[in-house]
């Protein structure tokens, strides 16, 4: 039992990170029909911005702040203006494919211009362990979990309690009606991209001390976010959160009790079953658009 608890707790920590990355994924889909295949690379890259700042002997908090700022500029605004805007009129598919190219571009650039080796990344939290009901959990994991949850709660509050947030939701649900109601749709969409960039940068700062900074990190994270978003519900933020946690836990349970060689297969099988049985995702709404 003790080990099951430990597996679930450890899975929740990993799941919180998946959720952060998956939320941004669903945000982009909702507001601008962008299936971002570079989402994993988006979560890999900010750590390297932060490393550059750290190499300039800046303190960690400032490096993280700068990393988030640069991410918002490059992965938020520049991504939107330079790639999404000109591509969007061509349809969902060409844009999705352009993000695949972007993923290769980001990954290979980091490898060539920074390093092919994994880099150590300082942690915001100490590594000591504490006893949680018989399972030893590190303070680092708890910190990661709490920060991720705080970010999600803050985002939810922003979306439901502020005028801007509600406008964003209106845009996500029906841009045409939102425009008629006088919502500045374009600004709201841009804001979504900025929020996505901030979320992935935060995820990057949280996860890299554990994962280590490496150009290939995006492959695992991107796949996890993708699966989490679809399983949870592609068109709902709470779906992405639930999907992230579910995936983190399933990863561990599958490896412990089903098969180590097929540990990566279980989440994918769940994905296929969900699409067959409940295509809108566990917590999603059925989409009205049929085509």
């Amino acid at each position, binding site marked *: 039992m003790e080990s099951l608890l430990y597996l679930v707790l450890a899975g929740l920590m990993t799941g919180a990170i998946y959720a952060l990355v998956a939320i941004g994924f669903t945000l982009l889909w909702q507001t601008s029909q962008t299936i971002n295949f570079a989402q994993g690379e988006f979560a890999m890259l900010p750590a390297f911005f932060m490393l550059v700042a750290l190499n300039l002997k800046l303190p960690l908090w400032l490096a993280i702040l700068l990393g988030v700022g640069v991410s918002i500029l490059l992965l938020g605004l520049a991504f939107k203006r330079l790639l999404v805007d000109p591509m969007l009129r061509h349809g969902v598919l060409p844009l999705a494919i352009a993000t695949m190219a972007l993923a290769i571009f980001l990954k290979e650039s980091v490898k060539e211009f920074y390093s092919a080796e994994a880099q150590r990344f300082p942690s915001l939290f100490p590594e000591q362990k504490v006893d949680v009901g018989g399972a030893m959990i590190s303070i680092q994991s708890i910190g990661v979990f709490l920060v991720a949850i705080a970010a999600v709660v803050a985002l939810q509050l922003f979306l439901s309690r502020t005028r801007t947030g509600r406008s964003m939701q209106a845009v996500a649900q029906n841009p045409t009606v939102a425009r008629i109601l006088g919502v500045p749709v374009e600004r709201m969409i841009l804001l979504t991209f900025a929020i996505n960039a901030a979320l992935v940068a935060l995820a990057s700062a949280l996860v890299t001390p554990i994962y280590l900074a490496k150009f290939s990190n995006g492959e695992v994270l991107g796949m996890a976010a993708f699966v989490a978003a679809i399983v949870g519900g592609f068109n709902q933020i709470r779906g992405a959160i639930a999907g992230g946690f579910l995936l983190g836990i399933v990863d561990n349970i599958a490896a412990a009790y089903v098969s*180590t060689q097929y*540990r990566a297969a279980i989440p994918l099988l769940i994905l296929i079953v969900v699409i067959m049985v409940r295509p809108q995702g566990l917590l999603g709404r059925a989409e009205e658009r049929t085509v």
Partner: protein
Amino acid sequence: MNTKFLTGVLAAAVLSLGVAAASAQNPPIKLENVAELSGPGATVGTNWKNGIDLAIAEINAKGGILGRKVEVNHADSQSNPGVARSLFQKAIDANPYALLGPGYSGSVKVTASLAEAAGLAQVMGGEAAELTMAGHKNLVRTSFGQQSSMPKIAKYIAEEVKAQAVAVVWVNNDFGKGGRDMITKELAARNVKIVADLSTEAGQADFAADVVKIKNAKADVAFIYLNEEESARILKELHGQNVKIPLIGETTLLGQKVIELAGVAANGVKGHVGLTTDAPVPAVQEFRKRFQAKYNYVPDHNGIKGYLSVYMIKAATEKMGKVDAKALPAALHNITITPDKEPGILMEVTVDEKGDLDRMSFLGEVVDGKQVIKQVLPKLK
């Protein structure tokens, strides 16, 4: 100051004249390298390539091989055997002196017959046991094959640690699976039981499930055969969960990089140390400094392998006393290269008739964040 500067310029001018004159008579020796520069093997191939470039720069600065400069052309196999095969064909078409790479054993398998048909030496980085068992006359390793390193570890686990039940944790790729199969066989031969056989994924971040399985299997020893990053992560997790059994590894697990990444969690780790920049040999330490100065990171064993590949070719060529591509494969077999004659070889090495290596290795332990060598395992012959 001025005179010094002038002398420098003069010396450089004379040197370059001399070099120009030399190269006019002697065309450069051309090497062709095919390695995993992108795809899942990118870290392996990049280290290998950098090692080669460093060795060539050093050799050329000292006048080349038999007075001839060395040149290399790098090609990217994209970690794909099909592409590696095509590029190897291209490399052979370019009529080189010798072929370098690849690093993935699968890619070595598809290219070895091409090199053999062309009669060219192939100095490669693959570690799978079977590579040198197929009887290719042209294939030479740059490190121990897994059939040389795993028996040493199995012997250590069975005879020194006296373990009865072992948990094996391995990364499920070309490298990890080969090691896992070999250690499984060697442990079985010594009547040691494998109580947990844990496959992990490259890039895996969460090792909670693996640690639970090690704990529940009641193993006396865990043998960990992963890449650097994953080694560090599992050590941290094992440490956090108070797993006290001996943790044993091969080369990477005791490496400086893992120690740096895992911190205190690496303390107490034991194992066999083959080719590593941590080897307590001054020449290796010097190499590490030069590599770090040029590329700004500490190389893994693939970096040393790439470096050695060029020096092995140099030593064999100088032993022949001529640059003869067709005779090179034979010259690279049944040869002992010693650092006093060829400092670039770093440690004395003997290549046998199959292309397998024999070299001194070590049993070590991590104590207070440092690798400490407990025992030197001499060359077998």
